[in-house]
């Protein structure tokens, strides 16, 4: 049991579960256009994505080129989505 409790992977997972519940909870109270919620939900999603990349996919221990590539993917994707969302508001 200690193996699970004192493991970074488990801590990361607990955080991911918690923010998933939070993001889902917030969005259940909204059925109209809601920029604050949307930006919050998207930012949470990309933070979750980065945590999965960093800890689960072990990119934190990989060569620099892979770290850079993953960051570039995350930032470019998140920015394009947020920009296009904001553009049509």
């Amino acid at each position, binding site marked *: 049991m200690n*193996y*699970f409790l004192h*493991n970074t*992977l*488990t801590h990361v*997972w607990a955080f*991911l*579960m918690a923010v*998933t519940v939070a*993001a*889902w909870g917030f*969005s*259940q109270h*909204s*059925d*109209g*256009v*809601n920029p604050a*919620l*949307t930006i919050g*939900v*998207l930012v*949470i*999603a*990309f933070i*979750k*994505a980065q945590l*999965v*990349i960093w*800890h*689960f*996919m*072990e*990119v934190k*221990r*990989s*060569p*620099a080129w*892979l*770290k850079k*590539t*993953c960051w570039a*993917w995350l930032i*470019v*994707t998140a920015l*394009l*989505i947020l920009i*296009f*969302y904001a*553009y*049509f508001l």
Partner: protein
Amino acid sequence: MTSSADAVMTKPPTTPPGSQLAGEGSMWFFIIGDLIIFSVYFVFYTWHRGINQELFLESQLQLNQGIGFINTLILLTSSLFIALGAQSVHEGEYRRALALMRTAFFIGALFPVLKMVEWLPKINAGITPGENLFYLYYYIMTGLHLCHVLLGLVIQAFVLRHLASEKTPDAEFVDSGAVYWHMVDLLWIVVFAMFYLMR
């Protein structure tokens, strides 16, 4: 304090810093390409969502939010067990690795089942991909993601067989399967936010 910590960080005992790639290089080629392909679709989705905001919002609210949510928790939990399993393989704890990977497989296998619970009532109600542009995106992207999940389960089945039959399993092979499964998880996190949560 920080300087001594840095000194430890710069001189790791066995492996050179930042040279460990989890899994095979070719698997990473596939993962990065897959992420980019999905990104192109995400960006196009956002664009068309902006143009047809009313339609997309209305259709989004018809989705089964609960199943989307539970499926996210399922993939996250399954991913945790895979990650723990891969870690156990590196620590030489092969029996524990096998148990963890088995658990991950059975949790992951719930995803397609719930996807059918989500899809079939929709299709029976006449809401097919031809319904509107939102549903076309919805079925294509969740369908493509489902293909990835199914492939992931097949890979995991091979990993389980490998772990059960080999005395000293190939850690690189286990890692390749694991990073693929995490990518499936990661893509669903974004799909979930974009199709179910954003308003």
